[in-house]
């Protein structure tokens, strides 16, 4: 861990006061903590590696926060930041795993069933990300709601608190965002499969 919990709390306080540039610093801290938590979980229960994403965000929170110093709103705010980080981290990972990105010589890779559709998942997640970028131009608040609800798996009330909007608005935004993305991704997905794929030969 690069920073003490104390300084993380300070970062959060600063951020609430409008220091958006601190996101980058927080990002690396969240990432480091994800690693630690993952490893700890693994050692604890190797036989059942299913991780709950909610618990993951929560664990990062527990790990980072000095709860005494941060109020309820602060916690919600923190969740929102972690959600945003999660989006970034996942998309970065997806780009690494994407079939589109992997050009050139292709090695035969053995997949576990969980990973079998990995490339496909990665591509779909990247599609979601670029749809979110398009949505941001129409209504950035909808995107923040999606980050909290989807990537951070935050509750409606936490999301409302973190974003400073009413629960009703969160509800409505979440519905609209899902609807719009669903439409957008469905179209994208369908055009993808409609395209006849030519299979090229590659030397292995």
């Amino acid at each position, binding site marked *: 861990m690069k920073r003490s919990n104390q300084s993380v709390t300070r970062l959060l306080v600063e951020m609430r006061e409008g220091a958006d540039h601190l996101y980058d610093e927080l990002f690396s801290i969240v990432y480091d903590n994800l690693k630690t938590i993952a490893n700890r979980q693994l050692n604890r229960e190797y036989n059942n590696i*299913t991780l709950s994403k909610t618990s993951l965000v929560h664990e990062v929170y527990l790990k980072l926060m000095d709860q005494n110093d941060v109020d309820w709103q602060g916690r919600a705010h923190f969740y929102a930041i972690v959600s945003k980080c999660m989006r970034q981290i996942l998309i970065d990972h997806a780009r690494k*795993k994407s079939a589109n990105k992997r050009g050139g010589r292709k090695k035969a890779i053995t997949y576990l069933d969980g990973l079998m559709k990995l490339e496909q998942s990665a591509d779909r997640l990247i599609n979601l990300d670029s749809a979110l970028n398009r949505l941001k131009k129409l209504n950035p608040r909808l995107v923040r709601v999606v980050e909290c609800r989807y990537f951070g798996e935050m509750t409606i009330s936490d999301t409302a608190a973190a974003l400073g909007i009413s629960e009703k608005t969160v509800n409505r935004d979440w519905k609209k965002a899902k609807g719009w993305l669903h439409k957008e991704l469905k179209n994208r997905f369908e055009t993808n499969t409609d395209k006849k*794929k030519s*299979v090229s030969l590659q030397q292995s």
Partner: protein
Amino acid sequence: MDRVEWKRIEEIVDQTLDMPKKQRRDYISEICNDKPAIKKEVLELLESIEKGKLFSDSQPDPKNNLMQNMLDGMNKSRLHENLIGKTIGSYRLVKLIGSGGMGAVFLGERADGLFEHSVAIKIIRRDFTDSETRNHFDNERRILAKLTHEGIAQLYDGGVTDEGRPYLIMEYVEGIPIDQYCNDNRLNIDQRLNLFRSVCQAVQYAHSNLIIHRDLKPENILVKKNGKVKILDFGIAQFSEGQNAASSPRFLSLNNAAPEQLTGDMVTTASDIYSLGILLHNLMAGCRPYNLNYQNMNDHVEVIKENLAKKSSVRFQQLPHDQQKEIAENRNLSIRSMEKSLSGDLDSILQKTLQFLPGQRYASAGELQNDIHLHLLDLPVSTRSDDQYYRFLKFFKRNKKATLFLAAILLLITGFSIFHTTQIGIERNEAQVEAARADEVTSFLVDLFDSSHPTYAPGEEITAEDLLEQGLERTDQISDLPVKSEILATIGQAYTQLGEHDTGREIFHRAIDLNQSIYERESIETADVMLDLGINYVTTGDWELSLPYLKEAYEIYTDHLEPDHPNVVKSAIRLAKTLSHTAEPDSALKLADSYIESIEDGYREHDREFLTDHLYYAYILARAEEIDRAEAIYLDLIERYEQLNDTLNFSVVVSHNNLGGIYNEKEKYRKSVQYYSKSLDITNYTYGPDHPYTLTVRRNLTNPISELGWHEDQLALIQELIPLTKNRYGWEHWRTGFEIARYGRFSLQKNDYAKADSLFQETYSIYNSVLDPGHFLIARTEAYLTLTNRLLGNHETADSLYNRHMANLNERDSNFSNAQIRRLQSLIDAYKEANGDFEKEIQTYQSMIAEGEGR
């Protein structure tokens, strides 16, 4: 859509969402009445919203998948680090040597350190909490441990660690993946195939023990430093499959898996066969038959089917040039020869291995291996066994020695087919019968060739004689008499070609008798066989015997056919050739001259048959002492055959040989040696060293060499001739005796009298047992023995030998032939050269020649 529009849409949707579902669409229609674009957007959005889902039903949330993978990646290094140094079974984990979806592999060493033993320890990532799964694992690994084969990495032990992680302890194999090994060492196609065969053998062994690999790919097939193959992880893939093994497999290498593995159907040994096919394709063509990825998941089956229809050679041709070049270089081949080696057998083997349906593939790895072996031996592979021409080719390729004569048969057969096909337009019915007959002859011979496989021991060349003998035996089973006669004639020709003249004659006579019983007495069919028989006699120099058959064939042909018909011309020239020996060479030339125009015209019409007629025309010219014209024709013939790229043709052999003779006569000895040698090279190659043609050319070659005084070469040739002749004719044959006498004369020239004497005695005893008493050759040998005995001081023996052969020679009632006169002359020379006073003998022989000529 811009932000303003979107804002409006959102507003409408917000309002709509507050309403009961039933009213929503009416409201939208009302409010967006004049804005159809907005209305459309709103309605679409509403529809999606009412579904209430971010992703379509058919597509699960991709996030969890990615998250899990990411965390696994983060964990892996830590997990492995934590395991180093731990003890599993009797082994300590030393270092990580690999990790993949299935788990991690460590290098292990004995924990007690009692002795050095390295193993590979595989820790499988799999939930083993339920007892059923665990029992299955325990049972299976016990079965796998029994799998003992030099081509399969041995499984020693296995179990479940205290933490519940299943592990396997296996033979540690140091090696590199087979594809990389082949390329690194630039193995050629045959070497690759042999390596692949050992893979097949190992797979076959496992399959016969009912164990399927399920994940055969280059990474699992290593080649060790000693060049031996080891297959890793046999049967282990099943441990990472779902509990219901028959259902969807969890563990796959997309581009090495069989289609049924992708579609979740039953995995069988045929799935491994398919994966072997993918591997073979890669080793041979340097590329995969197709490339699947996780983007075109839904099209996999289609993509596979589409690509499997293509041949590997075609796939190779479609690669970019640079890649082709690299692949070919890795196999020490040019791009062109790369294409050539892929097409044919390999294409067809690959196609049978890479069948979409498991039931259509090779039934076993053993069968696949076997076909590759057959291909390497140039034997017909199973996939192409119904192609007759292909089987012929294969037969020729592996029996080069017999090839020439078999090619003659093939020509004969295809000649039939072509002839009969062209006839169809004219006499349809008859032609069909004939064509059917030609087919029957063909398939009879094909069966004959096939019988050479698989009964014969590999590496041993089947001889043409063996084949013919079998063929002859089988002719008695043929009830269709015309077919039988054609086959007899064909076999007779083959025997003649092989130098088995007597057998050939016997068979020809049978065919003639048969033909005369089925057709009218003077039928074309009979003439065909008579011509063959006449030619057979000519080959051994039995001119007188050949005469009646050639004459009758010629007469039948001229009665039935147009004067310029190839058969008329052919028989006329053959007849003229015989006549140039049995009658006046000039009259023979006259007969030949009357056909020379037909010969020229025929050749101009690209009928190569007529080239042979040219050859004999030159011979007839030479007999009539038109040496220069003959020389010109021979030289021209050699050139024509060269242009036809047919330099191994028998006519080329004859032309060279006869030119050798002409130059010898013209005393251009070096040139003579040159032409004889060339002729010898070809006959040696195409007929074999003990074939009568080869023996003749070799004998001829001794003449200019002797004239040039190249004694060492002469001795070598003479010494070779004896065993070769004996090989062909047997010890008790005048030809063998003749060659021994040649050595005797050479020894005499070298003043080795004792050796000469013993050689002549050998000849003498052979002649006496096979020739009529009083035969010229016996008398001649007696003359030489007289000389050797004189030189050795055995005058008594010499006297009696002298008297005996003089009586013999004087009792002759016919003229000496030219050859005999030549032989007497060389006898005189031997006396002249001998160390002693032999004036009396010399004069006697000389007067004998003078008398003999006049008699």
